[in-house]
């Protein structure tokens, strides 16, 4: 998920405040529980099957949307599983298995035709909405139809728009057929069967079937943009109330049948989410135990991170959770002298990745040094390091100079390095890169742009990039889901490059495009994942991307929270579908 929530930078003040009060005992925080540092990465901490109590969550902002047709944040998807069920889902388990898909509403993975263009799912019988009415395959189709309407639901992903054989279909709201189920690309031969017809072969369709857009919506209850006020529940919890920007409360859904759902538990009686909570204060409340979890789950702020790292009693309740998110510097092949591969490789070698890691918070709250695109949690990832950056990852100056010589620029050159103004860590990372490049004679001038327009008007707009010579572009990319296609397609496929708003900032290699196409039609998952690993290696070889950090989020789980573990399928967030408080 590329979009992130803007936060007011109050880190300094918070650290002062915390330092001033460091000695005090923070309520129930710090004591009890059987956690150790990183325990929740591999097993549920404080396992429990006891029901009751209120799970208290908080969000420093608000959801992009809770409507299943209109959401793109990983944490929204994680949270949506509490009230809605989709055809497929990521296993609700700790560790690497969390990145595996498992059927949810469907009885099994999709059955595909030989040409990989038709995908069929059969629904489990007996699944009901919160009001007791049965869930029909048509309702899943209806929500997919809704998600196509980017006018009303602009936020969600566009995979169905791009892959379904739409034949001009735009929206159920323009649909004149009775029942508004006029989309020809999806058949519902009966209430329990749903068949997707694609316009091009796609082997990893089960991941599409995991998207929130496959959450059933009863057409009679649909109120369009207002539906988010009360999404009709199929999961273990249903809406009690939701005031955007303020608060949300979920209560038990008595029509949820655990026998149809091995992936979720229904432990707390109530789930409350406070919205718009000051990020630093949110951390303090986690630590003092008056909140159970930060629903956004991107990790604590700098102030709390410092506190957690320095105090063992807090650290044992924390996890440095790996995510499918990478920090890298895009190297524009369109901007001289980076049209020469050797000049690109000089950057790969010269970068002091340790210094950049430090700028992002160090190993604990920043992440691990990255040497290639696909982080270990992506299925098929191969650990490669095509441009070893010397001892301690401080950059290999000799190698870099060799490459510069090969590029015909033995004394270096001048270029521009961009970063987003509001992102302090990113700017600091750019400064660290600037310094390491200077050691080999590459003088990078840092230019900052507002994050809201970074991709739309500047770094993601090829015309602007060329005209202004933006050679190096600071960038972060998070997978839509942890799998080759969901991670890489938007940043390496040259055919997704548009006039503006790009996320592929210049990877243009026909060989890569060919591999992407090949992966799309490779039904066997192992073979397919291997193709993505080849793509990773090829892009690295082209040196269009200089990865430096596999992001980790430093998460805090108050000792009172039960059954808590990190789900790697959900971008390294705690799995809300299993949490309890008793």
């Amino acid at each position, binding site marked *: 998920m590329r979009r992130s929530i803007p936060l*007011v930078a109050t880190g300094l003040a918070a650290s002062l405040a915390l330092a001033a009060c460091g000695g005090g005992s923070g309520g129930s925080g710090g004591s009890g529980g059987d956690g150790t540092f990183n325990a929740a990465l591999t097993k549920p901490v404080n396992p429990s099957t006891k029901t009751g109590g209120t799970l208290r969550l908080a969000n420093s902002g608000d959801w992009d949307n809770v409507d299943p047709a209109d959401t793109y944040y990983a944490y929204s998807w994680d949270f949506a599983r509490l009230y809605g069920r989709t055809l497929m889902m990521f296993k609700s388990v700790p560790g690497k298995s969390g990145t595996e898909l498992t059927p949810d509403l469907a009885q099994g993975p999709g059955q595909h035709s030989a040409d990989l263009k038709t995908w069929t799912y059969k629904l489990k019988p007996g699944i009901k909405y919160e009001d007791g009415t049965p869930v029909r395959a048509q309702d899943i189709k209806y929500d997919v139809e809704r998600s196509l309407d980017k006018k009303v639901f*602009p936020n969600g992903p*566009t995979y169905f728009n791009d892959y379904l054989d739409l034949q001009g279909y735009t929206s159920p709201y323009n649909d004149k057929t009775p029942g508004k189920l006029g989309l020809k690309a999806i058949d519902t031969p009966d209430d329990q069967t749903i068949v997707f017809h694609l316009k091009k072969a796609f082997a990893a369709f089960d991941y599409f079937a995991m998207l929130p857009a496959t959450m059933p919506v009863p057409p009679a209850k*649909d109120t369009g943009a*207002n539906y988010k006020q009360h999404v009709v529940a199929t999961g273990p919890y249903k809406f009690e109330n939701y005031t955007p920007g303020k608060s949300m409360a979920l209560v038990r859904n008595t029509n949820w049948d655990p026998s149809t759902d091995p992936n979720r538990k229904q432990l707390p009686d109530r789930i409350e989410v406070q919205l718009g909570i000051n990020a630093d204060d949110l951390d303090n409340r986690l630590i003092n135990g008056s909140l159970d979890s930060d629903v956004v789950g991107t990790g604590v702020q700098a102030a709390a991170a410092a506190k957690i790292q320095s105090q063992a009693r807090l650290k044992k309740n924390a996890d440095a959770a790996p995510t499918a998110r990478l920090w890298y510097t895009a190297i524009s092949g369109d901007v001289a002298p980076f049209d020469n591969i050797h000049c690109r490789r000089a950057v790969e070698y010269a970068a002091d990745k340790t210094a950049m890691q430090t700028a992002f918070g160090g190993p604990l709250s920043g992440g691990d040094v990255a040497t290639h695109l696909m982080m270990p949690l992506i299925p098929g990832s191969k650990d490669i390091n095509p441009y070893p950056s010397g001892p301690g990852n401080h950059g290999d100056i000799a190698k870099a100079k060799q490459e510069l010589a090969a590029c015909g620029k033995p004394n270096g050159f001048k270029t521009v390095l961009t970063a987003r103004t509001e992102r302090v860590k990113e700017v600091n990372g750019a400064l660290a890169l600037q310094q390491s490049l200077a050691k080999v004679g590459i003088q990078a001038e840092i230019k900052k742009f507002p994050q809201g327009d970074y991709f739309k008007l500047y770094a993601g707009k090829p015309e602007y990039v060329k005209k202004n010579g933006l050679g190096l572009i600071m960038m972060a990319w998070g997978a839509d889901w942890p799998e080759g296609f969901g991670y890489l397609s938007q940043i390496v496929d040259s055919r997704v490059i548009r006039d503006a*708003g790009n996320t592929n900032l210049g990877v243009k290699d026909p060989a890569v495009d060919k591999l992407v196409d090949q992966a799309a039609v490779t039904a066997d998952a192992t073979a397919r994942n291997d193709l993505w690993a080849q793509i990773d290696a090829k892009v690295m070889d082209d040196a269009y991307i200089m990865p430096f950090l596999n992001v980790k989020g430093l998460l805090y789980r108050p000792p009172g929270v039960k059954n808590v573990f990190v789900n790697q399928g959900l971008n390294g967030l705690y799995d809300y579908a299993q949490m309890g408080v008793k």
Partner: protein
Amino acid sequence: MVTFLIRRLIAAIALLIIVSMVTFAIFFLVPRLTGATTADLASRYVGKSAGPQAIHEVEVRLGLNRPVAIQYWNFVKGIIIGAHYDFGPSKVYCGPPCFGYSFINQTPVWPDLLDRAPVTLSLAAGAAIIWVIFGVTAGVISALKRGTAIDRVSMGIALAGVSLPIFFTGLLSLAIFRDNLNWFPNAGTYVGLTQNPLQWASALALPWVTLAFLQAALYARLTRAGMLETMGEDYIRTARAKGLPERTVIVRHALRSTLTPVLTIFGLDLGILLGGAVLTESTFSLPGLGKFAIDSINNNDLPRVLGVVMVGAFFIVLCNLVVDILYAVVDPRVRLS
């Protein structure tokens, strides 16, 4: 008096119109002038990887493709006669005063503003009472005990209050009074007054005090300076020469004059605060107008930005008007004409 009121009312409305135009220009016109296409603007409101078609549809739905003047006219029209919005299954009518629909949340702006206003009102009113009482008292005592330890201590505190930012004192107060002492366990949330008055007060106690601390510091300095000046006035000497007890001299004569200019500043401060105490609300996670404003700006949610700017401007204009009237009441030298 009546003509004065009518004149001021017309001026206030004119001012609000100008404010709306300027705000509109800043958010809708300036981006275009600086080279962004209407599609660029619309692309802020789509998910990642949205294609040109999706962007175009959003552009049309939000009306961004239309000339700015027409957009402004529709904005004004919405306020006066309401407007219709496309919600998918049906069109929804948004009655006057319709400040449009959120670009991000697709909820009407006006009810949200009405929903947020009581939070800011609660914060501002409570803090105002505290800071006026403490600030003025501290200022008067400092002035009367000029040069003594009391004066120096209270002015030292006031200096700290003026120079420490709210997000520092706010988080510090939360750490001490909520987390360590556990006095206000629900600080950092908001409970409506009508929901539970006790919870309301205990949730707001720290924000009140934190905000009041900053303002009280300003008012203490202001009052002290004013009081010192007033105490040197000839009419204070006259009051003493009449044989008035010192307390009467201070309260009836000195304080009355000192507080008249303080009242003006108080009115302006209150007006600005009612438009949204941005820092206090963000620090204490209070869903008031200030938080609303900052969130809306961060999200580029233009209708909300416009709405909250208008409300803020309204409060400032209103408080100005009230201050002018009050001033004329308390100071006979000012004529309402």
